[in-house]
């Protein structure tokens, strides 16, 4: 009996080994820790896309998302090698990771034979590889957005002045084009509608001014002057010397803040604007109480989704490309250029940390995910389930399928958002003409993504797409967009400069009207020394980038 048992046991052991031997060529299952420097929802355990990745590549992800302050979180993570995640996305402060040397150089892992998709990706038509490399020629992060295949499809997703659609409807669908027209409309609407439909107090114009979101307070002037987003500087693209200057301390910045001062004293801007944090701002937006603000579309997507889910279609926002009225700029008529040509999202996306044991497998994964088959899964989902071929043979989504993409719970189980957001991806169009990004596919953009309210709204305004309110995209300048320049070398002065603006601009806006000039002059005096340091630095960097770009086209 004993012998029999022993044989049985031995047999069981051998049988147990068989699957392992058979599966030898399948890669060993590894778990990758990944950090994203932005808030995301944790994917469910049975998320269909992550499950397929696990089956196909033997890679499982353990996600950690930003909760709290980005710079502090990164600082703490970098302080200890052990706490470095394998896949490291530094969000809006990724330069920190590169400068601290916690990311590995990806170039040695990329080759024409080994990773053909990535190779092609980095040698695409609009890729300026030179500009992506560090001073020592290393590539730490492959841009997560901005690499275009075939045809570029440009939609507005960036900075603008926003206004609730119902206010435009109330104004007989007449759309303001200048700063004065905009605030005049808000004033008139607010006077007639001090409260919204739910009985909550309406807020005329909201300004988020804390942390890195202070761009809502600082950035508008460049757009009012007719430039796309260069961050905190205006570059004169007609000047052979690429004259670069900070705009906040220029005479042409004053009219904007003087206007805000006027609106503050009229009660259009509430004092809470300058003490609130982002949570309060977003909840005000999601309640439908904010008539207008300056922001970037992607930065309050969740509020829009919330408004749509509540059925408050008329409270969603229309993006407006406002410019200064001629009276503010010596009678000049300014042409708006809010939409810029696509720039590579330099230094944004996943890097691989020096702590990662499987860099090669991760780069191979990036490469495999760049295949057409996987790109469709990541962008669109699975055929039949998430999208279908319509009668014209084009890829399409029903209204229901598209609406899922506004549902946070559905996305947790059916989309790979945190991964999608950080990996290199294809944009523009596929070889068969469909858009890589479903939300810009014509059939969807003009139908499924629009509510009935939107369609009626556009018809009444006499436009077919939201972009019709904007001029055609500008051709992207050779230096890209100046906000991408790493401020590392002057970081202390830059920090002081930012804090001074965060401190003084609200003061200017809230100043007594008869003390406005005095306060403005004081501000200029305080800001000038650091402005000069920043301007000089940016001028030099812009010139370097231009040289690199023009150099690489010459090759």
């Amino acid at each position, binding site marked *: 009996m004993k012998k029999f048992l022993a044989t049985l046991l031995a047999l069981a052991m051998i049988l147990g080994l068989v699957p392992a031997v058979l599966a030898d060529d399948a890669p060993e299952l590894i778990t990758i820790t990944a950090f994203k420097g932005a808030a995301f929802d944790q994917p469910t355990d049975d998320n269909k896309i992550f499950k397929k990745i696990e089956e196909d590549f033997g890679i499982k992800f353990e996600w950690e998302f930003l909760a709290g302050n980005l*710079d502090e979180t990164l600082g703490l993570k970098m302080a200890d090698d052990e706490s470095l995640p394998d896949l490291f996305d530094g969000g809006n402060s990724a*330069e920190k990771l590169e*400068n*601290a040397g916690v990311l590995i150089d990806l170039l040695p892992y990329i080759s024409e034979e080994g990773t053909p998709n990535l190779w092609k990706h980095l040698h695409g038509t609009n890729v300026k590889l030179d500009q992506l490399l560090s001073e020592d020629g290393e590539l730490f992060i492959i841009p997560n957005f901005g690499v275009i295949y075939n045809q570029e499809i440009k939609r507005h997703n960036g900075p603008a002045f926003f206004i609730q659609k119902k206010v435009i409807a109330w104004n007989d669908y007449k759309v303001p084009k200048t700063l004065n027209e905009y605030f005049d409309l808000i004033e008139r609407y607010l006077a007639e509608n001090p409260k919204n439909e739910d009985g909550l107090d309406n807020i005329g114009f909201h300004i988020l001014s804390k942390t890195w979101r202070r761009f809502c307070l600082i950035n508008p002037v460049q757009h009012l002057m007719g430039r796309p987003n260069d961050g905190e500087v205006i570059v004169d693209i007609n000047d052979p010397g690429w004259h670069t200057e900070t705009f906040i301390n220029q005479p042409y910045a004053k009219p904007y803040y003087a206007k805000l001062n006027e609106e503050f004293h009229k009660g259009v801007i*509430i004092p809470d604007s*300058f003490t609130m944090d982002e949570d309060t701002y977003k909840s005000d937006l999601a309640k439908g109480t904010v008539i207008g603000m300056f922001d970037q579309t992607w930065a309050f997507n969740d509020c829009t989704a919330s408004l749509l889910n509540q059925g408050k279609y008329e409270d969603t926002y229309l993006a407006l490309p406002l410019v200064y009225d001629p009276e503010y700029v010596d009678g000049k008529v300014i042409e708006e250029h809010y939409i810029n040509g696509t720039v590579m999202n330099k230094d944004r996306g996943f890097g691989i940390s020096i702590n990662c044991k499987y860099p090669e497998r991760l780069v191979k994964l990036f490469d495999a995910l760049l295949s057409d088959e996987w790109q469709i899964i990541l962008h669109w989902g699975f055929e039949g389930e998430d999208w279908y071929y319509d009668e014209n043979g084009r890829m399409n989504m029903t209204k229901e399928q598209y609406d899922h993409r506004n549902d946070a719970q559905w996305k947790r189980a059916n989309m790979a958002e945190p991964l999608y957001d950080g990996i290199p991806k294809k944009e523009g169009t596929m070889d068969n003409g469909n858009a890589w990004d479903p939300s810009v596919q014509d059939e969807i953009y003009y139908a499924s993504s629009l509510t009935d309210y939107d369609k009626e709204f556009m018809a009444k305004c006499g436009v077919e797409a939201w972009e019709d309110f904007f001029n055609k995209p500008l051709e992207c300048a050779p230096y890209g967009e100046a906000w991408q320049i790493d401020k590392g070398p002057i970081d202390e002065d830059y920090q002081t400069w930012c804090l001074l603006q*965060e401190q003084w601009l609200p003061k200017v806006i809230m100043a007594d009207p008869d003390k406005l000039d005095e306060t403005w002059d004081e501000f200029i005096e305080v800001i000038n020394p650091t402005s000069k340091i920043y301007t000089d630095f940016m001028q030099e960097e812009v010139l370097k980038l231009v040289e690199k770009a023009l150099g690489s086209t010459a090759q």
Partner: protein
Amino acid sequence: MTNGAVRASAEKGKIGHFFRTLGKQYQLMIMSVPMLLYVFLFNYGPLWGWLTAFQDYQPRKGLAGSKWVGLKNFEFLFTHNTFFLAVRNTFAMSLINLVFGTVSSILLAVLLNEVRNRAFKRTVQTVTYLPHFLSMVIVAGMAQNIFSGRGTLNEILMTLGLTNSPILFLGEGKYFWWLIGVINVWKEVGWGTIIYIAAMTSIDPSLYEAAAIDGAGRFQRILHVTLPGIKSTFMVLLIMNIGHLMEAGFELQYLLRSGLVMDYSDTIDIFALNYSFGTANPHYAYGTAAGMFKSIVGIILLLGANRIARALDEETLI
């Protein structure tokens, strides 16, 4: 016998006495070992880290690999125009906390001490010290709801007709310190009473009886028995708190600050955070240098307060 010999034998007696006492109290000695270890491990051990204040410290390179920069980090702090604002704010807010925190705690403790109804006393005690357990994030959220322009307090003031337009409590520098003081008192008052109530229970009841027989009323008994009875506790706590004057708290200011009140809200900790983590490259050493500055000032204050107390013939710490 010469003087030297006398001294030597006295010394010998002293040493012998020391070891005899040590032998008698060896259980106590063994019991104190873990605490000593704790102090060395967590209070003295990290002092090695102070070396990084003299480096351009990069955690990845470690202490050995980072570049030594002498006093450059201190130079940055002491030449930055907002650093001394931060020092002023730190002092101002912790002084307000110290004065109002202590006064309110003693007041509440005295009042509770006079309450005869046990159930009422217990209820008040529990209710007043519960806020101590709240996270500062929640407290700051509540403060936003109460004190903001659209907050509860402004609504009440406007309904009562005390003001026409909302007062921006969170956006005015002149209110900020006091606001922090009020919130801290609310949060910590109950917790602060515990130690004073404990001190009061150790007062000999016969003192109260004797005072009552001598015709002292309730207020006089408080004045002449209760307060002197907790004086030594008060002095020890005061000296310790003076040593902590450089700690004004961090979370509350950090969560309630905005550009409008920056000149009043930013403490040394927030300053250090802004320039060590807020910048494009982390400068860990600024944080260390600021921390070192705080510790040294704290030690000086502690020793100073102790010396003054000794000069005044009061209870001292050391």
